[in-house]
C-alpha cells in the first residue's frame, strides 16, 4: 500500500519532470529563435545589401560624371572611363545573379528597372569595348543614353531600399512575436515549476506523515506483539524465525535473541513431527498448497527448550511483505486447559459411576427391603386365617394396609430410580383397555363414595379395547391420576373418558381424560404438579397422604410410552388430566368365555416351591396349601432340579436369588432335562422388578414372573393361567356400582375364605349391633374427643370387615370432630344412619 503509493508518486514526479523538460526544450527553441532573429536584426542594421544598392547608383553616377568630363576633355582618360563602366556593369551583374537579391528580383518595379539598366549596358558594351577613337566618337551617345537611363537606376535603388525596409519591419515583427512566445513559454514554465514545487511540498509532507504513521504503526505492533498473551512467532517461507515475542519466550523457554534466524521446526516442533513438518513446508514452497495456514485453530504438541512436550493450540496466517511471504503463528499453551478437561472427564466418569452405584444400591436395597416385607405381609395374610378376636383382625388389617403402602412407596422410589437411570423398559402384552379401566374404577369407587363422590367412566366415540401395551405401567399411571382425583374430590364427581383421536393405524392415538370437581390446583402450582415430592394443599396432607411421587412417576411412565400428560385446572372448581398415549392396537385373544372356563376348572395341583427364605417359603406354602394344592418345597435351585428329575410337577415357583444354585441356572437346567419337567411351567418369584432382568428370566425359559410380596389375587391369576386352577371360591357375582361404593366385595370374600362363613357371620352380627349402638351415641352434644374416639373405633372395624363406605363416613366424622368443624360434624353424623341402612343388608343378607 505504502509502496504502491510511493510508486504512484514517483510516476507523478517523473511526469512532472518530463513536462518541465518539454517546457524547457520549448523555451530553448524559442531562445534560439530569438537569438537568430536578433542576429538577423543585427545584420539588417549593417546591411551591405542595401549599401550595395546605393553603391550601384553611386557607381552609375561616378561613371556618368566621368563620361561627362571625358566628353568635354581634349584627351580624356578612356581607360578610367572603361573601368568605371566595368565596375557599374559588375554591380548590375551582381544584382541580376546574386542569390541574396532573388527575393528583390520578385519585386516588379525592381525587375523592370533592372532589365532596362541591363539593356542600356548591353547597348553600351560594344561602344566601351571599341578602340579609343570609336569610343571618343560614341561619347555623346553614351552620355545621352546614360542621362536617359539615370531615373531607372535611381528607382532601382529606391525600390530595393523600400523592399528591405519592409523586410526589416517584418523581421522586427517576427522577433516581437517570437519574444512574446518566449515570454509566454517562460511564464508557462514558471507556472509549471510553481505547481510542481507545490506538489513536491505536498508529497514531501505526505511522505513525512506516512513515515510517522508507519513508525507509529510499527511501534504499536511491537507493543501488541510483545505484550500479547499468546505466543507470536513470525517466520519466512524457509522456516527461519523472524520474530519471537515475550509470550513465546515464556511458553517455549527460548530467548528471542537465541532463536532469531534459526529454523522454526528445529526449535518448537517435536522430533516425531519434524519430518511431517519439513515435508509440509517443502510442499508449500513447491506448490503453494497450504494445509495449515489460514485454517483456524489447530491443536498439536509442541516442544519446549528443555525438550518436554506440551499441548499447544495455534493458528497461522500468511502475509505478503517486501521480503516475500511471511507466516505469523499465534500459539497458546493449553496444558492447563487439557488438564482441566481431563479432570472434568474424570469427574464426569466418577459421577456416572456414582450414579450407577446409587441405582445399584437402590435396586439392591429394594430387593433387601422387599424380601423381609414380603415375609411380613405373607405372615399377616396367614395370621388372618387363624382364629382371631375382632380387635386382632383389625390390627392385622391395619398392619397389612401399612405394609402394602410401604411396599408401594418402595416401588415408587425404585421406578423413579430406574427411569432416571434409563433402565425402565416396557413389557407390552395384549391387554384390554376397557377391562383395565373398569377394574380401576371398581377399585376406586369405594374410596370415591367414602368422599361422597361418584366415579364413572366410558368411551367417547369408537372403542379400542385391545391394545399391545405394558399393562402394569398403564395401570400405575391411571391409578395415580384417578386415585388423586378421588382423593381430592369431596361431594363431587369424577368422570373418566377414553377417546381415540384420528384414524386407527399402526398406532391408536388414545386420550384418557380424568375430570374431577375437586379442589383444583392453584395456577402457580400447575407447572410443578408433575415434579417429584410434590403434594397438594398441605392442609390435606394428613388426610390424603402420599409421598408426592405419584404424578412424577406417572409422567415418567407416560413419557416412556412416548405419550404426554397435562392438566387443566381451576382452583376450587376441579381439574382435568389428559393422558395421551400412542398405543399399538391388538386383536382380541381367546374369548373371555374360554378364559372363564379355564379359571372355573378346579383341581388340586402338585406344585414345586423353590425358595431359600424360610418365611417366604412358609407363607407361599400355606397359601397354596390353603387352596388345596399339594406343595413340595426345595431350598435352592440344585434341590429343585433334582426334584424335577424325580417327580412330575404341574407348576414350579422359582425364587431367583438362592445359594448353591440360583433360580435362573435351575430354570436352564430344568429346561435342559430330558423329561416331562422340561415343559413344566416355571414362574419366577422375585422382588427385583428390573425390566431387563425380567426379560433375561424369560429368556432363561421361565414362563412368567410373580413379583413379591405374594398376594392371593396374584397367585390365583398365575394358577389360573398355568395350572388351570383357581381359588375354591368362584368369581364373585357382578355387583352394582353402588354396592362397590359401600362395601369391598373382594375383601369380604377373602375374609370369608380365611375365617369361614360362620365365624364371619358372627363377627358381622356383633359389628352390626356395635354400629347401631354407636350411631345412637354419636350426637353432636357429646364431647368432641369422645366422638372422635368412638368414630375411629367403629371405622377400624368397618375397614376390617370391608364396609368401606361406612368407614369413610365415620372417618369424616372423626376428622370433623378433631378439627372442631361443627357444621361438617353435624353433616357427617346426619349421613351415618342412611349409609348404615344401605350397608347392613349387604353385609348381612337375609
Amino acid at each position, binding site marked *: 500500500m505504502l509502496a504502491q503509493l510511493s510508486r504512484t508518486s514517483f510516476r507523478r514526479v517523473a511526469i512532472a519532470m518530463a513536462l518541465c523538460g518539454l517546457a524547457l526544450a520549448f523555451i530553448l527553441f524559442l531562445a534560439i529563435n530569438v537569438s537568430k532573429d536578433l542576429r538577423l536584426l543585427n545584420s539588417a542594421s549593417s*546591411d551591405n545589401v542595401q549599401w550595395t544598392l546605393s553603391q550601384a547608383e553611386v557607381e552609375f553616377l561616378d561613371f556618368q560624371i566621368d563620361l561627362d568630363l571625358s566628353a568635354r576633355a581634349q584627351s580624356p582618360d578612356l581607360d578610367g572611363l572603361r573601368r568605371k563602366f566595368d*565596375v557599374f556593369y559588375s554591380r548590375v551583374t551582381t544584382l541580376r545573379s546574386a542569390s541574396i537579391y532573388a527575393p528583390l528580383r520578385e519585386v516588379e518595379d525592381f525587375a523592370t528597372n533592372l532589365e532596362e539598366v541591363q539593356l542600356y549596358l548591353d547597348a553600351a558594351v560594344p561602344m566601351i569595348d571599341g578602340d579609343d577613337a570609336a569610343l571618343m566618337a560614341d561619347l555623346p551617345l553614351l552620355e545621352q543614353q546614360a542621362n536617359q537611363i539615370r531615373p531607372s537606376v535611381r528607382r532601382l535603388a529606391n525600390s530595393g531600399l523600400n523592399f528591405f525596409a519592409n523586410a526589416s519591419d517584418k523581421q522586427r515583427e517576427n522577433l516581437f512575436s517570437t519574444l512574446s512566445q518566449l515570454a509566454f513559454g517562460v511564464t508557462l514554465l514558471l507556472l509549471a515549476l510553481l505547481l510542481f514545487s507545490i506538489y513536491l511540498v505536498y508529497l514531501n509532507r505526505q511522505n513525512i506523515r506516512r513515515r510517522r504513521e508507519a513508525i507509529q504503526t510499527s511501534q504499536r505492533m511491537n507493543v501488541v506483539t510483545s505484550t500479547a498473551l499468546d505466543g507470536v512467532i513470525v517466520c519466512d517461507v524457509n522456516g527461519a524465525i523472524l520474530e519471537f515475542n515475550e509470550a513465546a519466550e515464556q511458553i517455549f523457554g527460548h530467548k528471542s535473541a537465541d532463536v532469531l534466524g534459526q529454523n522454526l521446526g528445529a526449535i518448537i516442533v517435536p522430533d516425531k513431527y519434524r519430518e511431517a513438518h519439513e515435508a509440509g513446508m517443502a510442499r508449500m514452497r513447491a506448490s503453494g498448497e497450504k494445509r495449515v495456514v489460514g485454517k483456524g485453530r489447530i491443536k498439536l504438541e509442541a516442544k519446549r527448550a528443555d525438550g518436554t512436550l506440551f499441548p499447544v493450540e495455534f493458528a497461522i496466517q500468511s502475509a505478503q511483505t517486501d521480503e516475500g511471504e511471511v507466516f505469523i503463528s499465534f500459539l497458546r499453551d493449553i496444558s492447563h486447559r487439557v488438564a482441566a478437561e481431563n479432570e472434568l472427564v474424570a469427574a464426569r466418569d466418577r459421577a456416572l459411576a456414582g450414579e450407577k452405584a446409587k441405582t445399584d444400591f437402590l435396586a439392591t436395597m429394594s430387593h433387601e427391603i422387599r424380601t423381609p416385607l414380603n415375609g411380613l405381609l405373607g405372615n399377616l395374610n396367614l395370621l388372618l386365617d387363624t382364629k382371631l378376636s375382632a380387635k386382632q383382625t383389625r390390627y392385622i388389617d391395619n398392619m397389612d394396609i401399612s405394609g402394602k403402602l410401604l411396599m408401594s412407596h418402595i416401588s415408587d422410589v425404585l421406578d423413579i430410580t430406574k427411569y432416571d437411570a434409563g433402565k425402565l423398559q416396557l413389557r407390552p402384552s395384549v391387554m384390554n383397555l376397557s377391562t383395565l379401566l373398569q377394574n380401576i374404577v371398581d377399585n376406586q369407587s369405594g374410596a370415591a363414595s367414602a368422599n361422597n363422590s361418584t366415579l364413572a367412566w366410558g368411551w367417547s366415540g369408537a372403542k379400542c379395547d385391545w391394545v399391545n401395551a405394558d399393562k402394569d405401567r398403564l395401570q400405575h399411571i391411571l391409578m395415580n391420576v384417578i386415585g388423586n382425583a378421588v382423593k381430592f374430590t369431596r361431594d363431587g364427581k369424577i368422570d373418566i373418558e377414553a377417546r381415540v383421536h384420528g384414524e386407527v393405524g399402526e398406532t391408536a392415538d388414545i386420550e384418557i381424560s380424568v375430570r374431577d370437581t375437586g379442589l383444583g390446583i392453584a395456577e402457580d402450582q400447575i407447572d410443578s404438579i408433575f415434579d417429584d415430592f410434590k403434594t397438594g394443599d398441605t392442609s390435606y396432607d394428613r388426610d390424603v397422604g402420599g409421598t408426592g411421587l405419584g404424578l412424577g412417576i406417572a409422567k415418567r411412565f407416560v413419557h416412556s410410552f412416548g405419550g404426554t400428560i397435562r392438566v387443566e385446572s381451576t382452583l376450587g372448581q376441579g381439574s382435568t388430566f389428559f393422558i395421551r398415549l400412542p398405543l399399538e392396537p391388538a386383536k382380541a385373544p381367546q374369548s373371555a368365555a374360554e378364559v372363564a372356563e379355564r379359571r372355573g376348572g378346579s383341581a388340586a395341583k402338585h406344585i414345586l416351591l423353590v425358595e431359600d427364605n424360610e418365611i417366604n417359603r412358609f407363607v407361599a406354602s400355606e397359601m397354596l396349601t390353603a387352596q388345596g394344592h399339594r406343595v413340595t418345597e426345595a431350598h435352592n435351585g440344585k434341590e429343585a432340579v433334582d426334584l424335577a428329575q424325580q417327580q412330575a410337577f404341574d407348576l414350579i415357583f422359582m425364587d431367583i436369588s438362592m445359594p448353591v444354585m440360583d433360580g435362573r441356572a435351575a430354570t436352564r437346567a430344568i429346561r435342559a432335562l430330558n423329561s416331562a419337567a422340561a415343559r413344566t411351567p416355571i414362574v419366577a418369584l422375585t422382588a427385583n422388578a428390573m425390566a431387563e432382568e425380567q426379560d433375561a428370566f424369560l429368556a432363561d425359559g421361565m414362563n412368567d414372573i410373580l413379583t413379591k410380596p405374594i398376594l392371593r389375587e396374584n397367585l390365583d391369576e398365575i394358577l389360573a393361567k398355568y395350572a388351570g386352577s383357581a381359588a375354591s371360591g368362584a368369581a364373585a357375582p357382578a355387583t352394582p356400582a353402588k354396592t362397590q361404593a359401600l362395601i369391598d366385595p373382594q375383601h369380604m370374600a377373602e375374609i370369608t375364605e380365611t375365617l369361614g362363613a360362620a365365624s364371619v357371620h358372627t363377627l358381622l352380627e356383633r359389628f352390626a349391633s356395635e354400629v347401631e349402638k354407636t350411631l345412637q351415641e354419636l350426637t353432636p352434644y357429646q364431647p368432641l374427643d369422645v366422638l372422635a374416639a368412638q368414630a375411629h373405633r367403629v371405622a377400624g372395624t368397618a375397614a376390617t370387615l370391608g364396609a368401606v363406605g361406612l368407614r369413610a363416613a365415620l372417618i369424616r366424622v372423626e376428622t370433623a370432630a378433631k378439627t372442631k368443624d361443627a357444621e361438617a360434624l353435624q353433616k357427617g353424623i346426619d349421613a351415618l344412619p342412611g349409609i348404615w341402612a344401605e350397608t347392613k343388608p349387604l353385609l348381612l343378607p337375609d
Partner: protein
Amino acid sequence: MLRFMCHIATSLFLVAAPAFAAPLDAPKGEVVLTVSGKLTNTNVEGTAQLDLAMLEALETTTIETTTIWTEGNQRFEGVSLAVLAEELGMEGTVLNATAINDYTVQVPMTDAVEGGPILAYRLNDKVMSVRDKGPLWIIYPYDSDPEYRTEVIYSRSIWQLDRIEVAD
C-alpha cells in the same frame, strides 16, 4: 571558438617567421595587386607589386563553394591569404583591402589561416575581368563553415581588389 584560437595561433606563427620567404622579383606583366604598409618582402619602393604570373607562381588554393552573389556552385582558384602574408612578410594586425573604385574593407590578419580566405584570380578556370569582379576577389570557404556565412565575412569578401595596406 577553439578553431578560432587555432587560427590565431597559426597566424602568430606565420607572422613570427617571415625570414623563410623568398626575395620578391620585380613584376613583369600588368600589376594586379599592390601591397603596402608593414611588410618585409617588397620589390618596388617599399611596396610589394605583383602581376598575375607572380600570384600564380605561389601555392594555389582552390575553393569550391556557393556564394550569395552568384548562382550555383563556383570554383575559385587563387592564393591563400595566409600564403601571401607569409610570402610578403606581413607584420600588421589588419589589412585594409581596397577595390579599384576605392571601396575599402578591413580584414584582420587573424583571418589569414590555412583553410581560410584566398585572393581568387580565376573563376571556373577563367581569369576574372573587372566586369566579372576581377582582377582579384577575396573568397572565404563559405560552405565549409557556418562561421564564414556571416555578414561580417560577406563584407570582407571584397571584389575588384587591387590594393592592400598592412596596418597595425
